[in-house]
């Protein structure tokens, strides 16, 4: 290792005070500076931070944005999410590959790496890719070739952006081609009165200090009571009552407590948090500050997924302005009641980090391994401190509730699910984008709004949610019926639904941390049986065996990822069984249809130089 190299690594460690809990940031910066975290860097980091080497190495190999192999100066990460696949991923990848003269996973001599990655939160403008941190959207094979040619000229991903997106995407600190695609329920031309425009709570214009002034004028217990009165439930998907979570964290012993905003938005097909981070960051940060006041926390962490790194300079600016305005800092609003500040913790590409205990591990500078519960984060979370983890949208709702009072919030939605929900609609429809709907809205209404009435199936809640067919389109979007963290993917009449299920299983196979057997092995077994069925070699018993494997995974896996990884199979078997049944046939003469003697003996024939007499 050159001395320069070693100095760089030790300087980066020093920037973070040689603090082992910032290991993830250190590795991210080493990756950014040197293009890799190789064995020498791992040694140097381990020595400087006095950590076992294996801890550093296992972190580097865990996150997909870190690598031991040297990457090019420019890394193109093409999103391989199912929606992208339906809209031309294969062609775009082939074009990139051909123009660069390399296969995915390789690096050109002039320093461009081509990779594929899980959903980057751009499903409404797919196919999309990240070029270093810069999102490029609505790709086709032609645009892919142009991008490569242009990169070869200047190697500056930022210069790929010529047309800017709407709203703050055009802000000078963002300068991105991403569009918000916030959809109204009807256009102004159709309905000038705006009566059918639908509610706007989360997406309503933000009145900056209003909510916080109101919150700090009452006691923390009263803030929690207001949130409880609003019946707000977590928007990330699980739907835990927010007020109750705050109460537990407040009641937990200890003087140092933490608020974490989960902006890891990794569920494929979800992108509403990206829009909130772009358009309503003040509402998010106000929500965190109010949460901090309610539970007695002085520290806030925004855990931002690596895919949204292009928003960091802008978000840092918003935080700076809030500090200048006294909305963050040692004495919030000058009332002598609260000291609170927020730092941004970047992720490094790991779906499982959206799970709150894995997210906490990641914030602590570790691999994003889920932790055993109990103890729950409210008792022992980040660094063992009582911690409250809330979704971006939940915190926006908090601010809105403080702005307007819980009663007006409850006017929307139904008894079990109050307020509105942001839906990220993508796939086969005319108007993909963000829709704010009241809880209790029928799925068929959402399809109508998006112009996707001819869907043959809808995936509600992302891969870990459920796939429903037309016979359930009259069900409602709410926690007790069709629950969703926001992802709604539409599949039109020409789509092969089993390919969709297969893509979801591949996704989970890639993202499983491999710690527990039901998840690690179960996903692969499900995929193998599904592949047999798709190849027309399935038997009716295979469907039962998939159900059995799926139920075992649901019961026996360690964290939410494994517990829900079988959902694409289980829900499609339940709701769209005929798709499977059309492909399976009973075995004849007791011979398993999945066994193909000719294929199994082919290699033996080649090696022995003669034909089998049994086939």
């Amino acid at each position, binding site marked *: 290792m050159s001395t320069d190299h070693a100095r760089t690594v030790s300087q980066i460690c020093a920037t973070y005070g040689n603090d082992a809990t910032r290991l993830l940031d250190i590795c991210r910066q080493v990756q950014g500076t040197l293009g890799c975290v190789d064995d020498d860097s791992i040694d140097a980091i381990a020595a400087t931070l006095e950590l076992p080497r294996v801890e550093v190495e296992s972190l580097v190999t865990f996150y997909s944005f870190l690598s031991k192999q040297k990457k090019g100066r420019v890394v193109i990460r093409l999103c391989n999410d199912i929606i992208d696949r339906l809209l031309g991923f294969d062609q775009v990848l082939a074009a990139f590959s051909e123009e660069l003269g390399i296969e995915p996973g390789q690096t050109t001599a002039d320093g461009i790496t081509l990779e594929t990655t899980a959903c980057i939160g751009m499903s409404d403008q797919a196919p999309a890719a990240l070029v270093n941190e810069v999102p490029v959207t609505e790709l086709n094979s032609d645009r892919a070739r142009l991008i490569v040619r242009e990169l070869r000229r200047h190697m500056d991903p930022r210069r790929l952006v010529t047309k800017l997106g709407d709203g703050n995407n055009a802000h000078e600190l963002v300068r991105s081609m991403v569009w918000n695609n916030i959809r109204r329920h009807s256009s102004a031309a159709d309905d000038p009165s705006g009566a059918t425009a639908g509610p706007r709570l989360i997406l309503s214009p933000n009145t900056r200090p209003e909510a916080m002034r109101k919150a700090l004028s009452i006691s923390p217990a009263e803030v929690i009571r207001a949130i409880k009165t609003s019946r707000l439930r977590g928007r990330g998907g699980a739907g835990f009552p927010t007020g109750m979570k705050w109460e537990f964290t407040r009641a937990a012993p200890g003087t140092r407590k933490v608020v974490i905003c989960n902006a890891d938005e990794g569920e494929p097909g979800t992108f509403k948090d990206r829009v909130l981070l772009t358009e309503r960051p003040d509402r998010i940060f106000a929500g965190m500050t109010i949460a901090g006041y309610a539970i007695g926390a002085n520290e806030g962490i925004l855990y931002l997924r690596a895919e949204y790194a292009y928003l960091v300079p802008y978000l840092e600016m918003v935080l700076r302005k809030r500090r200048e305005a006294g909305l963050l800092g040692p004495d919030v609003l000058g009332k002598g009641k609260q000291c609170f500040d927020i730092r941004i913790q970047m992720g490094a590409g790991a779906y499982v980090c959206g799970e709150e205990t894995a997210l906490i591990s990641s914030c602590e500078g570790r691999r994003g391994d889920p932790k055993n519960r109990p103890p729950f984060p409210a008792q022992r979370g980040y660094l063992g401190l009582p911690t409250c983890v809330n979704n971006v949208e939940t915190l926006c709702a908090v601010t809105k509730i403080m702005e307007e009072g819980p009663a007006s919030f409850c006017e929307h939605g139904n008894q079990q699910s109050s307020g509105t929900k942001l839906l990220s609609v993508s796939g086969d429809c005319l108007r993909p984008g963000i829709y704010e709907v009241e809880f209790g809205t029928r799925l068929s209404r959402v399809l109508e709004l998006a112009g996707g009435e001819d869907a043959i199936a809808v995936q509600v809640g992302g891969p870990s949610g459920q796939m429903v067919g037309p016979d359930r389109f009259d069900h409602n979007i709410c926690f007790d019926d069709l629950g969703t963290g926001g992802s709604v993917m539409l599949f039109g009449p020409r789509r092969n639904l089993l390919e969709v299920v297969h893509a979801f299983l591949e996704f989970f196979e890639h993202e499983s941390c491999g710690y527990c057997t039901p998840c690690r092995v179960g996903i692969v077994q499900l995929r193998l049986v599904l592949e047999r069925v798709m190849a027309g070699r399935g038997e009716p018993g295979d469907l039962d065996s998939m159900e059995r494997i799926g139920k075992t995974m649901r019961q026996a896996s360690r964290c939410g990822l494994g517990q829900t990884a079988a959902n694409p199979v289980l829900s499609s078997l339940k709701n769209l069984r005929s798709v499977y049944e059309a492909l399976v046939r009973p075995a004849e003469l007791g011979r398993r249809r999945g066994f193909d003697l000719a294929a199994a003996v082919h290699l033996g024939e080649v090696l*022995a*130089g*003669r034909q089998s007499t049994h086939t």
Partner: protein
Amino acid sequence: MAKPRIATTSLAGCFGCHMSLLDIDERILQLAELVEFDRSPIDDVKRIAGRCNIGLIEGGCCNEENVAVLRHFREHCDVLVSVGDCATMGGVPAMRNLVPLSECLREAYLDGPTVHNPGKRLPDDPELPLLLNRVYCCHEVVAVDYHLPGCPPSADTLWAAVVALLQGTPVTLPYGLLKFD
């Protein structure tokens, strides 16, 4: 009434399960009273002569002949039982599934440190059944009715299972017969 017929075979196994069957000791006389043995290494009959009530399979499938025999058993037996870990899971022979077939053969017949093979020929005698790309357990190839785990299943396990099948009572083996540590 004719005696129930029973057939047994060893595919990609080591005959250990058949040895375990012989370990039922003097109960073998009782078994001979109870059943008629059709095809089996015990009586050296090579083809199944008539419809059998029970087929016991030792070993999984590593070559084309194993597959043919297993299918023959499936067609001629009412109840087919996978006996032992090789039949139920592939067992020791399936350890080769971690290595591609061509590499296995190269190491065994060409490159291994103790190999003497001046002609550099892989075994290709037409009498030798062709190998499969990997070792398959029985229920991957045909439908199997019962699985008896163990390496080998103990004589008492085999006895209890066969008697239950012959008497038409449920095959519920006590925990002691299914635990191996």
